[in-house]
């Protein structure tokens, strides 16, 4: 177990190093001068560019710049944003991350139980009508881009149903996400979270339920299931006590993967719904050429992903004593 932990941790650090190197050098080594971009492109005078260069520490050798940058990032000093006047990068990112995390939480709370139920039903009734219906629905939803499902929901709820009591009721239940202030409390934000969370749910739903279905089908074919059935144990308790317990074990990993997946899915969903989260901040930062903000956002996302994966590996190893820990 200790050896496994050590290996996982070394891999974690190595991955962190590689991704930070890549994020840093991608934005520095590519042709084009970040200082010139910040100063305003071709119109900027040489003095302006030089001033920004020294301000950002761009005159130091690249390895030194990298060490400074990573050190500042790890200490929590993420610099000032250029795109959003006066704001501190860290405050901005923390606030938007909290919003994105709320959205992700609602999406996971909606999608995980629902998709487990659907996956189990489909798995237990393999190739029967419920399975065919669930599989067809999830197969077509899993492949749709988030913006198509998102716009579909917006247009149905917000616009497509026109005026009248129904549309008014819906507008009351699903206020526009773009009208929410970025610093609203969770309670204030919740009504605006349902619709984007539902869009994310549709995508996750398809994914998790397909994996659950496969797990249940595989587990049902095991010898111990047949033995238990021959011993005269009722089907219901064979399923609940043995099959599901084993089939749902990989779900821990699946949820971790879906968090990774949510991070890129949320970029699109937040953009579609105009939701003030980390993803929409990333797009705004790229559009406004705020390199330092972009670097920090990507680093934060990578940190979240790596920690989730590390946690999932450890949880999986702890839950499943059979796993090879070499």
């Amino acid at each position, binding site marked *: 177990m200790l050896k496994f932990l050590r290996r996982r941790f070394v*891999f974690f650090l*190595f*991955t962190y*190093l*590689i*991704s930070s190197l*890549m*994020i840093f050098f*991608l*934005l520095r080594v*590519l*042709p*084009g001068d970040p200082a010139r*971009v910040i100063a305003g*492109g*071709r119109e900027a005078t040489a003095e302006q560019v030089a001033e920004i260069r020294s301000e950002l520490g761009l005159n130091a050798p690249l390895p030194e710049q990298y060490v400074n940058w990573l050190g500042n990032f790890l200490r929590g000093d993420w610099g000032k944003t250029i795109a959003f006047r006066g704001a501190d990068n860290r405050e901005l990112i923390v606030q938007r991350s909290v919003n994105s995390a709320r959205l992700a939480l609602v999406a996971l709370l909606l999608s995980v139980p629902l998709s487990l139920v659907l996956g189990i039903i489909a798995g237990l009734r393999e190739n029967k009508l419920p399975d065919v219906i669930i599989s067809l629905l999830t*197969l*077509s939803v*899993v*492949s*749709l*881009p*988030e*913006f*198509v499902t998102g*716009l*579909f929901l*917006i*247009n149905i709820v917000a*616009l497509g149903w026109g005026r009248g009591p129904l549309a008014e009721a819906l507008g009351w239940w699903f206020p526009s996400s773009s009208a929410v202030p970025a610093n609203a409390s969770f309670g204030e934000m919740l009504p605006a979270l349902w619709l984007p969370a539902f869009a994310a749910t549709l995508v996750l739903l398809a994914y998790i339920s397909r994996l659950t279905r496969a797990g249940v089908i595989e587990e049902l074919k095991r010898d111990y299931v047949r033995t238990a059935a021959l011993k005269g144990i009722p089907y219901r308790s064979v399923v609940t006590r043995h099959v599901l317990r084993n089939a749902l074990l990989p779900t821990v990993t699946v949820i971790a993967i879906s968090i*990774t*997946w949510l*991070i*890129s899915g949320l*970029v*699109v969903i937040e*953009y579609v719904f105009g939701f003030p989260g980390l993803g929409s901040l*990333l*797009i705004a930062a*790229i*559009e406004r*050429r705020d390199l330092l903000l*972009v670097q920090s956002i*990507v680093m934060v*996302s*990578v940190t979240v*992903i*790596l920690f989730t*994966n590390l946690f999932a590996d450890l949880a999986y190893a702890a839950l499943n004593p059979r796993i090879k820990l070499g």
Partner: protein
Amino acid sequence: MNPTPFSRQIVALRRFASILLRHPQSALGTALVFFFLFLAVFGAQLAPYPNPNDQSHAPRLSPTIDIGALQLGEHPFGTDRLGRDVYSRVILGASSIFRIAGLGTVISVLVGSAVGLYMGYRGGWFDELLGRVIDALLAIPALLLALVLVGIIRNLDFEIGSWQAELADNVVLLVIAVLYVPVVARVARSSALDIKTREFVEAAEIRGEPTYYIIYREILPSVIPALVVEASLRFSYAIFLVASLGFLGFGARPPSPDWGLMVNENRGGFYQLTPWALDFPALAIAILVIAVNLMSDGIRRAVQKGN
């Protein structure tokens, strides 16, 4: 030697096609993908108004398509707020998504399999190091990397007409190619690890064949099924990514008839004016993405059965 060198491949291909097309879902998917491919190739001949930016029509005309009567009418999908024929633009938009996703996939599969096969065959520290780097690269979600890369490269100033500017115009294609190289390399590597312990590889080594010969003539033929499955999977992800990037404003620039861009240009307040200018490109994306998925699902099944 075999008197008809290609007969075996043709038989294998036929067998593969018949397994693929026997399954109704994958047959439908494949047919639809070929339909869109047809549009992509012959779009300029099929579109009633071959210039996508032809604004000579009245703006905001409703669609005239009548599915019951099988009639298209003057503007089957209506016209947008600038007076452009949506039907023509949807048809003309097929070529860019196929070109970008298709070429991107081809490049990534070629480079990725070369890298992966070499890694797997050579092994040792080289494989170990590169393998770890690949794992690390894959920790960053593809969409985030694509956004950052496209965002940076497009904002660089290049001389108009220079080769850098040419590359920057195809930035989405290049980004897709680059992003999927590590993914393909990982698949190729693990397949090569499996094959390189077989006797025929050992025999070639004993004969003293050079490395490229062993990789190209001995290992490659055995890993082609795995690579075909991976290529079709990559293609479906690439279509998805191109559409998403176009929608986010990081793909084609206006006024090109890119489906994702058309969806983005006609959402919000414009949707109430001309819903059809959003609905039809969105529908095209949805159908294409589902079709490509069904096809790649079928290809995977056919390859598994064929082995």
